[in-house]
């Protein structure tokens, strides 16, 4: 199942959909992260009989969803040679705003959702403005937003979880009794990310800015304005990830998603993007997020302690990027 979704989203990215086995082999060789995912799925299937079941693979999808949606947003930022450390906090803040406005203030759910996504976008705009106009390094601006976002979430919720409306909680359910909604949202956001990167003015500008900001500026790309768009997108995606997370937890928790920004960045980088900018794809980011989810899921099935899981995940991140950089040099 997981590989099926992969293929469809991959087909969207490149005009050549994998057809014969020769094509498939080339796709795997060209894409280190995809090969790693295939190998990982193979190993996990061999080691645990419970891994390769529809139910478990859907679980992996659900577990990957929040990280993947955050990572799609961060992809825009990393492609343009920036960094966004605030997405975990912004996700928690947006979910808190949703729950607070709908549950505590009694606003209609649709309005609460708009407010939540608006909050994420606003956070991104503030980071973007600090970077574009305040000339702060992205690391610093989004580090500040990481703290501000988390703090505001705690202020609004007064430190305790807030229940979310019934209709939002249903986002954590399945469609037709088997297809989890978070997986659908993840795929939809992935398609949007792919389209934005490949087809829109802003997407193409991201690659140019990340590749050579001065050349982009001298070619008439309005770099400052585009940076606002980039960080606003990242904030908006974080808000959606926050809502998905809240739906799974059935409440908005101000302390949720702590450290998720690092998983998101790891997913983007494992997926082949370069932190120095100019390179990165939605399909790669999806694969990166799936690799992290498969690892966690598989190690759980194998009863590896949570402590060792962290070690293994660290090693995999280092290996994935190392192999990719060696392959590029060759």
């Amino acid at each position, binding site marked *: 199942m997981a590989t099926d979704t992969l293929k469809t989203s991959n087909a969207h990215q490149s005009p050549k959909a994998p057809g014969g086995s020769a094509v498939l082999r080339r796709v795997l060789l060209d894409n280190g992260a995809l090969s790693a995912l295939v190998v990982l799925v193979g190993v996990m299937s061999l080691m645990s009989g419970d891994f390769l079941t529809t139910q478990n693979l859907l679980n992996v999808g659900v577990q990957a969803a929040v990280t993947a949606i955050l990572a799609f947003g961060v992809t825009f930022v990393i492609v343009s040679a920036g960094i966004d450390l605030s997405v975990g906090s912004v996700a928690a803040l947006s979910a808190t705003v949703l729950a607070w406005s709908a549950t505590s203030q009694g606003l209609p759910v649709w309005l609460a959702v708009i407010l939540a996504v608006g909050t994420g976008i606003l956070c991104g705009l503030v980071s973007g403005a600090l970077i574009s106009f305040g000339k702060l390094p992205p690391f610093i601006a989004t580090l500040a937003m990481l703290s501000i976002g988390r703090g505001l979430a705690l202020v609004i919720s007064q430190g305790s979880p807030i229940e979310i409306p019934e209709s939002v909680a249903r986002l954590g359910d399945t469609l037709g009794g088997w297809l989890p909604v978070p997986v659908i949202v993840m795929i939809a956001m992935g398609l949007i990310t792919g389209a934005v990167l*490949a*087809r*829109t*003015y*802003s*997407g*193409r*500008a991201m*690659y*140019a800015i990340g*590749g*050579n900001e*001065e*050349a*982009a*500026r*001298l*070619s*008439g*790309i*309005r770099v400052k304005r585009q940076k606002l768009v980039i960080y606003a997108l990242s904030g908006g995606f974080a808000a959606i990830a926050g809502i998905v997370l809240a739906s799974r937890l059935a409440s908005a928790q101000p302390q949720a998603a702590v450290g998720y920004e690092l998983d998101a960045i790891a997913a983007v980088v494992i997926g082949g993007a370069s932190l120095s900018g*100019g*390179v990165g794809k939605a399909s790669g980011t999806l694969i990166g997020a799936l690799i992290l989810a498969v690892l966690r899921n598989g190690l759980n099935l194998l009863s590896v302690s949570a402590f060792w899981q962290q070690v293994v995940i660290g090693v995999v991140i280092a290996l994935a990027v190392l192999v990719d950089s060696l392959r590029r040099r060759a």
Partner: protein
Amino acid sequence: MSTQSATKPLSVKSASELLRMEGVRKTFPGVVALDGVDFDLRRGEVHVLLGENGAGKSTLIKMLSGAHRPDGGRILVDGSPVRIHGAQDAERLGIATIYQEFNLVPDLSVAENIFLGRQPRRLGLIDRKTMNARAAELLARVGVDVSPTDRVRELGIARLQMVEIAKALSLDARVLIMDEPTAVLTTEEVDKLFRIVRALRADGVGIVFITHHLEEIAALGDRVTVLRDGRSVTQVPAATEQDELVRLMVGRSIEQQYPRERTAPAAGTAAAVPLLKVEGLTRRGSFQDISFEVRAGEVVGLAGLVGAGRTEVVRAVFGADPYDSGTVRVLGKRLPGRDVNAAMDAGIGLVPEDRKGQGLVLDASVHENLGLVTLRRATRAGLVDRAGQRRAAARISEQLAVRMAGLDQRVRTLSGGNQQKVVIGKWLLADSKVLILDEPTRGIDVGAKVEIYQLINELTASGHAVLMISSDLPEVLGMSDRVLVMAQGRIAGELGAQEATQDAVMALAVKDIKGVTEDVKEMEGSRGH
């Protein structure tokens, strides 16, 4: 021109000789930077190195400081051959270099900079007392009013230079190389520098002095070696007439490799329309009162020495950098300052000096780069017409004969000439009426150069205008219909195609514009550091 005869026989060796270079060669990929240079330096003399931009002066001094290794020839210090493979070797031999860009750490103290990496130590810890005392001695010897504990960041440019000299003295330098030390100094500061240099000379230090200011040569120098096209063409006494020095610097004929097809401008027709009109453009510290116009069908050359402010002016015209006063008009319409998009929309295109750093997204493909300027135009409702962009890229790369494996090849892997065609191509796709080319042929091979010249001809024939900066004099003279010469941030003069000779251009380029200079230099001094 029989300049070879002036070269002194190599075998004559003086007892006071410190340094000798014989037949030194250096090639970089695709370029011969030095092609058999002879040079010698005696104790207690100031030996001036003179030459145009690109004549090989910098490469020569980098051989002595250990930054480059020669490919051929030899270097002798005190009569014995030496290898200078790094800064340590140069230091050991007593050779110190003061570059135009200072090698100082802004946030450390003056004393720490002077003794960087060689701080006096006691029990493994830096002995600040000794260090500061020794620095004070050196600073006193240089005669500069700076405290050893001052932070370098807070010093003006003249004092930075004095600190560099103190640092050189701390190394017991016997050979001091100074690369255009007066370029950033005011007249008073230059006088002070000269006093120090004369004192060092009296102490027996041998000084290699690079300058573009001819009047400084007679004032300070003893001998002059003239470099041209990577060769040492002659050695003359410093008292040589300035006109003669200019002739020696540029003394070559323009070969017929600049196929400018000059179309006689018919009066009152499109050819006479001023496309670009710049009036009184000024940015304090960079350029002053720049006025010129560029008419349809015309190539205007912008000549001058490196640092004369040419690039700064064209970047301001294009809106890439701000200016303080003055106007830029395209077809009579005034452009707002510091707005690249307004300049682009009005029809100006800039092919920047630094192709890789400013012109291209190196890791993006040929067609991505070609489509950069037209990206906005190709966007409808946020979506880019990528198929259309690709077709346009295919068309222009064929027209410009870009040699590539395909449109998806990364531009990093193209040759310099083909990279430059891509930069020009993106502006052609945007149909820029006025194309500003900043050093368009630097570092590209002869074949590609000629293709770019042909392209300039085609552009002007179809009513476009070209403003071309070039430090390659024969190129400027060969391709321009008019030549503007800049010196020290001002336009020193304008020459028509007939009157523009190498001598005339060089004479204007080294012209000292009194009064203005002080102001400009002072402002430059307060910038950056």
